[in-house]
């Protein structure tokens, strides 16, 4: 049995999901069932962070993945992000790293700088 807080709405139902049958309990609406199943089988997250940038007004450039990545890949992605350096100027939405840590997602800038 896995437990999650449902994030679909502010109510924050405490869901219990059976890992074998994927039966969801504790939800108040059908959306909770779907959320619970996804969280139990393939939880995905957008990763946001910063990279070092030279010659800009700040020392860090905000970045994000351009699509959600598996939750268990977050720290692998951070290892790559930590070693990356960029030079100003960059455009908003510019791709910095393709296929970040084998996730299939690209690392893109969140702003120009």
């Amino acid at each position: 049995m896995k437990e999650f807080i449902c994030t679909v709405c502010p109510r924050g139902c405490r869901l219990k999901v059976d890992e074998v049958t994927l039966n969801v309990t504790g939800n108040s609406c059908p959306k909770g069932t779907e959320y619970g199943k996804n969280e139990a089988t393939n939880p995905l997250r957008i990763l946001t962070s910063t990279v070092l940038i030279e010659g800009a007004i700040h020392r860090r450039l905000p970045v994000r993945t351009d699509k959600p990545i598996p939750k268990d890949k977050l720290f692998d992605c951070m290892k790559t992000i930590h070693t990356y350096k960029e030079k100003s100027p960059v455009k908003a939405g510019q791709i910095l790293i393709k296929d970040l840590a084998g996730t299939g997602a690209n690392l893109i800038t969140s702003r120009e700088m």
Partner: protein
Amino acid sequence: MLEYDLVVIGGGPAGLAAAIAAYENGIEKIVILERDVELGGILNQCIHNGFGLHRFGQELTGPEYATRFINRLTETNIKVMLGTMVLSLNSDKQITCVNKTNGLFIINAKAIILAMGCRERNRGPIGMPGDRGSGIFSAGSAQRYMNINGYLVGKRVVILGSGDIGLIMARRMTLEGANVLAVSELMPHSNGLSRNIAQCLDDFGIPLYLSHTVTEVIGKNRIEKVVISQVDSNYKPILGTEKEFNCDTLLLSVGLIPENELTRSAGIPIDFRTNGAIVYDDMQTETDGIFACGNVLHVHDLVDYVSAESEKAGKNAAEFIKNGYISNDRKSAVTIKNGNGVGYTVPQIAVIDRVEKGLEIFFRVKAKSENSVIEVSSENGKIASFKREFLAPGEMERIVIPKKLLADVSENITVSISGGAK
């Protein structure tokens, strides 16, 4: 002496949206005064995603959300003065400011929009005991150090308060290699969004101690240890429930306070419930031609609501400049009162004659409830009711009372909560 039609104080999300809305409603001579080196305000350091779901139908990061408004601004001829600090303003709409190029200077305005935002509550007001070693930060300043300046402020971290900034920083510091040992929350529930509890704490196995507070901070130079204790129903620590954490950093996420020194300097009345100015339905304060919007008025949960509210202020400021309408005519104004279960409302006063289709009221409830009814009554009895499945103090509520129901109201409107249990 400079002359502008509209001066917007603050270039964060509120100021940007207000200035653009005023411009789009026909005002040309607008200036935004911003003390930082760039526009965007606190959004620049909020690099996480989740902004703009209501407004743009997608989850943007803070910088992305700000960029949308800044790009729109560059298409206008709104003037921006960066690195400019406003020192005072008065009820004649005279603003005293200072910057590196002009020195000390005065701007005369036909209208002013207050959009200064809020700041974090710190150690003093919560009466936190213990040593005063370094390593104690407000969550937002740690966020700025981390995301703008590139400093991880500590390696072993305890967080007091489960507000959203604290939760976001728990995740952020964990991803950057710090060990977040605990989040301690005085209340029996978190004030953060449930999605942040899930994605910032549960995802990383960070424990949340509800009904716990910091009772000792140890460390003369750098802090070395933080002690938290469980509290009883009166928020008094219970002896014998102490838990010790060996840590080098304590982050405080214990509330936000609207930054209203300038508002007070102009003699504009403040509502003690919101810590922001008292405003009319058009976002105008008790001083003619001075409007307020965003977190300087009341602390919002979502920037999307800040933008919407600020556009309203901008549009009405434009009307004021163009037509100089008699806005604060007290004879036709009604007071909006807080009834049972309501913590505050914005606006606090409404001029019914001026309301177009309906009167929009934002408010917060005092306690969680389910299947409740929001009741609106006047001196003549009940005028409207709105059903809600779920109400919580952490979620701002919005109702719109149709104008036709307000026809007979002459003195006051009361918003209250009835029914519901939890």
